[in-house]
């Protein structure tokens, strides 16, 4: 099937479903708006609810390239936008020297596109300048420093980059931008205002069963319902780190590998480490008895 940009809420939903992404309608509406208005999509939510997945699914749906920028503390323009290829520049200088013509005009050539290493943001804008519309994923923006946020604000408002030594590059069509944040700190309002904001909730019981049926087709309907029920109860327990959908899928995969077809107390006790990642949380569940999490599942 030929990949296209979906043009209605229903089409977005269907396209996501074809990529095995079970979205609630409000997310489909917001994605549809982002595609139509050319605005970045700002997704927040607890870890493991499928924020990053949205970008991957969008890239697969539109058949465009996924360009990913993973944020971290200290991320700067050289890592996010562009950097010069110093080793090649050095070689070029040596070569010119050897030919004894290291004069004015030629040495300027080492400051051209040829010696530039494009990082994700520039790659996205270059692709946009070439008429394509790639999916730019700016993942976990909350990990980057505020200085970087300010820079991004500028970039997202006009989708152009000026490289002082070379030129200004502008995207014809804005890339499809997906920004995710785990909310380890507040992102500045001004940046969020440029975007369409969507908070991804933990799925309801029914949707989590649907996700399991979609992403873990090997397990039975009964087991899917058991797992989803246990997850809902775990999330109600005020744990230090409540498990996300990613953990649900890991759990399903673990049970499959171990050949379990039912979630019983001993099975849960053996595999709890797949779901809970803090020793305190595991201790708490074991203390209260794993049966409570399984109750009426």
């Amino acid at each position, binding site marked *: 099937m030929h990949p296209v940009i979906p043009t209605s809420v229903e089409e977005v939903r269907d396209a996501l479903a074809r990529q095995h992404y079970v979205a609630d309608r*409000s997310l489909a509406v917001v994605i549809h708006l982002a595609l139509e208005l050319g605005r970045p999509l700002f997704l927040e939510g607890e870890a493991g609810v499928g924020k990053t997945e949205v970008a991957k699914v969008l890239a697969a749906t539109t058949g465009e390239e996924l360009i990913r920028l993973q944020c971290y503390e200290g991320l700067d323009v050289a890592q996010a936008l562009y950097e010069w290829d110093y080793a090649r520049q050095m070689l070029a200088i040596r070569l010119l020297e050897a030919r004894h013509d290291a004069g004015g005009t030629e040495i300027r050539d080492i400051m051209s596109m040829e010696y530039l290493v494009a990082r994700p943001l520039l790659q996205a804008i270059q692709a946009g300048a070439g008429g394509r519309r790639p999916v730019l994923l700016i993942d976990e923006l909350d990990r980057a420093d505020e200085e970087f946020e300010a820079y991004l604000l500028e970039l997202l408002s006009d989708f152009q980059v000026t490289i002082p030594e070379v030129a200004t590059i502008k995207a014809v069509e804005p890339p499809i931008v997906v920004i995710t944040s785990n909310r380890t700190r507040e992102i500045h309002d001004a940046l969020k205002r440029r975007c*369409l904001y969507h908070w991804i909730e933990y799925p309801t019981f029914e949707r989590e069963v649907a996700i399991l049926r979609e992403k873990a087709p090997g397990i039975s309907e009964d087991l899917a319902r058991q797992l989803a029920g246990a997850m809902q109860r775990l999330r109600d327990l005020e744990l230090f780190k409540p498990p996300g959908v990613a953990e649900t899928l890991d759990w399903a995969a673990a049970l499959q590998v171990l050949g379990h077809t039912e979630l019983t107390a001993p099975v849960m006790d053996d595999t709890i480490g797949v779901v809970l990642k803090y020793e305190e949380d595991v201790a708490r569940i074991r203390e209260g008895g794993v049966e409570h999490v399984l109750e009426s599942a």
Partner: protein
Amino acid sequence: MTESFSANLVHFVRYLRARGLSVVPATARDLATAIGVVGLDRRDDVYAALRSLSVVRPTEMQAFDDAFEMFFGTGQVRRGEREGTEVTARTRRPAETTRTAVPILTPGHTDAADEPEEDVTEITGGTYTERLSHRDFRDLSIDEQEEVRKLIARMVWRPADAPSRRWAGTKGGSRPDLRRTFRNAVRPEGDLLPLAMANRKMRKRPLVVIADVSGSMERYTEMFLHFVHAAQGRLGRVESFVFATRLSRITRQMRIKLPEVALSQVSYAVKDWAGGTRIGEALEAFNCEWSRRVTRGGAIGLLISDGWDTGDPALLDREMRRFARSVHRVVWLNPLAGRPGFAPETRGMRAAMPYVDDFLAAGRLTDLRAVVRLLETVGTRPAARPVPHSGAAAASGA
């Protein structure tokens, strides 16, 4: 779209603004565009579309839902928009009108923020202030309290820098700055390549304050809040919390410039003044909900409490261990510690002490000055903590 509908969106945005959302007038136009895209056929689509352009944090969802219900409640746009805006004006909550709130001023009030900063060393020259600064807060008369408050507001803060992960060009830096080196090489006659260098940029360490406002702290609470307010004004990145039986975040209120207004807003916001003390539970709430958000970048954790804890010491031990792991340094201020014969022997203090790097008295102005000095000299590496038992030693990774 009809004209009245557009007008309605304008009112909708105004209403959201009055309810504390950070929408701007231009948002109304965005909302109209969005409705143009999703259409008016389905109410849930309109809801999702408008929400994505109005809300920027989960805590705003409730206010948005209420507003949406009010304007689009029946699936149709309500006609009486004017009514809506009037209701807004009346139902504004006090917490949202902080900027226009009339301060409750004490008689001898002066605007400390407008006064020039005075260096601590100069202030200590005077004999009256000298005497004042060595008196316990609870023994001060009302006039003397006012004087001490002013002195607190005028303390000079020079917090320690910590290296950030970003780099900036400097002569004699520790790493070559190739970008600058090569840019310099493009200059005419650039046949030599002098190596430009870079160092890590420095930035101020964030400060996280968690203050006990329970009954046993009552006579000190106001002074400490003044102290925290002064810190907030000087240090920038300060997050502040208070607790008795439960934790409340007061950072927003503390950002108000006038200390009297800030403190009166805090008293609005905090529900359990002078209750019992549950340090362990307060710390647990902090560790679960806030720690990951506010301790980044090597924060200094400042705990203010007399340690009269009525909670479970095992819980306090666990939560202190977690807290100590997530901050650069744990500083504990105890107003009782300066008294003769004091030893940290309360149940709570005993549970917490193994995780405390610096334990300071805080009952007098001179004590608070020592705290400010400490914050200036806090090193770039964590202090060696006394090791309580194997679990914590492994966890701190020091």
